[in-house]
């Protein structure tokens, strides 16, 4: 795999591991959590994001679209998602940046070069690089090459994964080049997991078990606290017990934030049912914290 599909590159990330980091958001994820923070990275192909508030309605994009997927109605463009191939040719002539292609193909070299631009920031802060997504293990071959390249430059590396991957491939491609693994757990009940996220959790829990055997020090289990989904008493209690029984040393809780709701609309995706429009408050957070002996809080 010479090329990887990358949704975005977040420079100066300070919540994705130690120090100042660059986070590479891979595009494509096998799950589709309704609360996903980055819904624009779920689909494993390029997409076009549309920001209607910027649109002048000039129609220059209509001519640029090879699929005839754009029309201008009432002074603003509209994308027919069923026709859109995600090629992004419409974005180039847009004066107002109302159209943006999400998902660029990168080579290991081009990504490494970009990441190294901030090397001094990693050095002064003890930071590095975090692969995130989407789900980086969906492009394991490319991710592995990238990690080896970064390790070759002496950078600290981390990954944020949903845990749904082939253990053998992960162990072969990535594990040796990773300093830190953020491993996400969401729902304990396999049926609920299947129902809401589109996949059961047996593989995920199995992978966590193997990972803990291989790298007990390098794993942080993360639980997103989503009201009505994960942040439910039975679920949190069960996950806490599971992690305790597996001997997980570092647990991190991710308080709910409605980041993803508005982003989903930009790419024509429906956002989750019944999710609150406000971030989780500290009082509620402390309720869930009590289930764990020690839990770090991330992203707040």
């Amino acid at each position, binding site marked *: 795999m010479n090329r990887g599909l990358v949704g975005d590159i977040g*420079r100066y990330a300070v919540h994705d591991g130690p120090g*100042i980091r660059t986070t590479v958001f891979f595009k494509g994820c096998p799950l589709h959590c309704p609360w996903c923070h980055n819904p624009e990275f779920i689909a494993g192909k390029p997409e076009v994001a549309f920001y209607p508030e910027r649109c*002048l309605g000039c129609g220059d994009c209509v001519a640029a679209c090879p699929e005839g997927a754009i029309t201008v109605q009432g002074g603003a463009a509209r994308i027919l998602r069923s026709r859109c191939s995600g090629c992004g040719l419409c974005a180039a002539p847009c*004066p107002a940046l109302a159209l943006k292609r999400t998902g660029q193909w990168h080579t290991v070299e081009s990504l490494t070069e970009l990441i190294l631009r901030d090397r001094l920031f990693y050095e*002064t802060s003890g930071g590095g690089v975090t692969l995130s997504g989407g789900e980086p293990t969906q492009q394991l071959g490319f991710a592995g090459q990238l990690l080896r390249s970064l390790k070759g430059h002496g950078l600290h590396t981390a990954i944020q994964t949903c845990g749904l991957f082939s253990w053998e491939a992960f162990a072969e491609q990535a594990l040796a080049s990773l300093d830190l693994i953020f491993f996400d757990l969401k729902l304990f009940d396999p049926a609920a997991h299947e129902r809401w996220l589109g996949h059961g959790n047996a593989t995920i829990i199995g992978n966590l078990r193997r990972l803990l055997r291989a790298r007990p020090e390098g794993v942080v289990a993360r639980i997103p606290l989503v009201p009505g989904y994960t942040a439910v008493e039975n679920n949190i209690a069960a996950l806490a017990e599971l992690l305790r029984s597996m001997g997980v040393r570092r647990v991190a809780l991710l308080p709910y934030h409605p980041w993803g709701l508005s982003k989903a609309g930009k790419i024509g995706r429906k956002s989750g049912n019944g999710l609150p429009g406000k971030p989780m408050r500290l009082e509620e957070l402390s309720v869930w914290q009590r289930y764990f002996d020690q839990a770090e809080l991330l992203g707040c």
Partner: protein
Amino acid sequence: MARITLPDIALREHTLESLPRLRELRELSFARRPAICIERARHVTRYLKDVDQATDTPEVRQAKKVRYFLERKSACFHDRNLLAGSTTSKELGAPLFPEYFALTLWPELLTVSERKKNPQKLSLEDARELNFDIFPFWMERNVLEQARKRISDPTGLNLFESLVFFIAGKAGCISHCVPSYVAMLEKGLDGIIAEAAGHEKECRQAAGDEERRKADFYQAMGIALEGVKAYAANLAAEAERLAARAGDPTRKNELAELAAVCRRVPAQPARTFREAINAIWLCQVGIHAENINMAMSPGRLDQLLYPYYRRDIEAGQLTVAAALELVGCLWLKLADNVAMVPEASEELFGGAGTVPAITLGGVDTQGEDAVNDLTYVMLRATELLQIRDPNVNARYHYEKNPPAYSQRVAEVIINTRAVPAFFNDAVNIDALVGQGEALEHARDYAVIGCVELASNGRDYPASSSIILNLVAPLEMALHGGRRLISGDHQIGPRTPEPAQLKSFEQFWEVFKTQLDWLIGQAIDLNEHFGAVHQEMMPSPLLSALFEGPMQKGADLIRGGARYNSSGATHIGFADVVDSLNAIEQLVWTEGKFSFAGLREALDNDFAGDAGEKMRLFLKNHTPRYGTEHPVARKNAKNLIRHLFEVYQGHTNYRGGRYRPAYWTMTNHAGLGALAGAMPHGRKSGELLASGITPVSGAAPELTACLNAVADLGGREVPGCWAFNMKYTPEADQEAMRDRFAQTVAAYFRAGGQQVQFNLMTYAMLLDAKAHPDKYPELMVRVSGYSAYFKDLNEMMRNELISRSQYTLSTGAAVPFPGLPADGKKAEPGGQTIGDWLRKALSRLLLFTPANRPWRDFDKCLKSEVAEEFLQLLLRLMELTFAVNPAFRKNIEGFAGRYLFKSADGEVTMAAIFKDGTMEVREALIDNADITVTFRNGRTLLNLILSPRQDILGSMLRQDVKTEGNLNYLYRFGAMAKQLQLMMPRI
């Protein structure tokens, strides 16, 4: 004793509550309103009028003038400050330097106390003295007019006086330097005087003009220093007098101590920390008797004073709290003066202090960590006081200084939201080495004023010699050597029109042709001013506090310093780079627009839907400086390199090279308001970016922005730069502090020379603009100095608000919410000039004969027909001189010839003043002292009779062109203003 012994470098136990004196003085500093102090102007004028000997050399004359003033300067104790001495006789005073621009105050003498924006108090009595005794003496004598007499080709002067090409700093000052106080503290002024006397004796014994000249200079040094001693003696006497009368024993004791200090220093060597700190302050006051209060910077005080601090602490004579109190007292003293600013200049310089810069930390001359306990005491004083001046700067060597130091500096910035600024030792030292300075001298650099660099006490860099507007040559390149603001007038070389060009490289050549021509003009003019300074404004006093003049026997102005240079700073760097990027990428590389089409859109200011669409495309698709786009990086680097090479190719009148720099004070706002549309989608009148900072909104990623700026740092920016960053304040201050320091360290390792911060949000600044009363003490970083937000003009407030705001917890720029619609600038007082005059005249009408042509006057004011207005004004003035003896006093002994013309040549009026009379002619006259050419009646009204008289503003907008001695215009403006104020009361 280790250099760091403080158990807590943040000195948290010491607060304004535990230091009530500092709290009281700080409150006073915010309560005080500036007042104009005429003492200096009075005494130097008297000296030159009545005492001066024509045979004295310029240096001796200057020394005697300065001594004459210092001997007579009021000895004031305004408050409970522990240091004796004050810059002026006022609590917060603006001294007047008639040698420079004091006469711009003339038309405002009667209104400056009451003006709406930043008034400066002036008593009627002082105004009369200025009007009748002081200003008339200087009509032909200030630096600008002396230079005008010498200049045969007026091109450069005309460019300067139109103000939109470059500003020639020397017309207003040189100052901008860092003296050395080492010898003064160790030997006392007496020691320096004795040394000078020794040299003088040797030179007098030797033969030849050269030796005589040197002898005179040494003599001048001694004379000037005697002035400082006399001032200290007067202070001692006054303190003794006050002590004898004081009832409160504490105050009595304080005054007795002040007297004892002044009896000792600066004449004799300082023995204690307190004596040393007061000696420095007295010398700073002395320097301001000679040189104007503009960025006269005390330098590395934590290094200079550390031996005294340490000795006293070790001897148990000084506590940390007492040292902190004394340092705080010095900071407050350094802030006891402001510049006299005429109302129109508020647009360009509004809200500025006088920017004495203090430099802390960094490495010593051996390249080792120089941070000491006193560094932290001074940081704490800065953190507690949060006042505009002094401008405190922190040097930081990322390999030598400990992380605790950079974290502490970051913490002070977070707590003050604005200061200090961070300077990169590694790169700045190398930049000075690149200028030929010895390594150990370069390591001992200090910051001048805003950001400029100088080896402490060895370097005379005249760092504010040229302020060049880079937008001007860009516009000239786009218009074949013309500018939109000045119409068809050919200014620079005739270069090909854009439509005739075949490549971006050709355009780059055209741009450089205009730029180099403009630089040549600016340098040429600076050299003329330098020659005038050598005749008029040598600095024997300052020279005595420098390394070099004593050894060379030459005044600073004659190249006496060890290192010499002249500084040129630049306005509009980021906007011009972005414009070059737009032209290269979108016109030539992508062919999105034709150059002719782009030019047309610019000329129309992107009018219409098509224009707006094009503007948006340019704004959004131009490769931007502040990102890592290769085109943007290349053009930024090319411009930096080109400017460096051009300036370094010029040698100044003191034998030093010109050094480019990138700081803008508030000029980027004022000059932005006057610049036309630009190719990167900037509409006419919009703000320009400050210093070396990328255009607001152009650099969305923090690290990319820091990398792009840092990429330019090094030997090609020897004058340093101001880089403005705005960060969102965060709840977790400790985490923010660490990231803050790490980020600065990375930017410095990448090559960044300087960075300064505002820790504010868009919302907070918008609120401060809407409700200034809620934020009376809000201090902001402008471009190299600090100001109180409430003092800034509208444009600068908007500029501060719209600067990119980054959040350290995301590394991304926060989306800018936009400025609220301000609407048109309201006329002052809510009425038009015509309304005001009509009202005044209608009252006048009741008391004047019916056959007077008031109705006509009223009609012409309505229509603003220039000819009739001018005629009536001049006739009215003539009449009033005839009937009103008090008004006539204005022209007793005054001879002046004025010619007024309209731009179309239809109106010609002359006024001739002679023997206490005024004669009006409707004809051309010869030998006019000043010729005023105005665009139309409205512009003439603005110039002469506006309630908010705006001579500079009129010139800035190119409404009015003048030829000749500007002081005549100021004098005429003053008389017109008096007439105007008299009218309702006749």
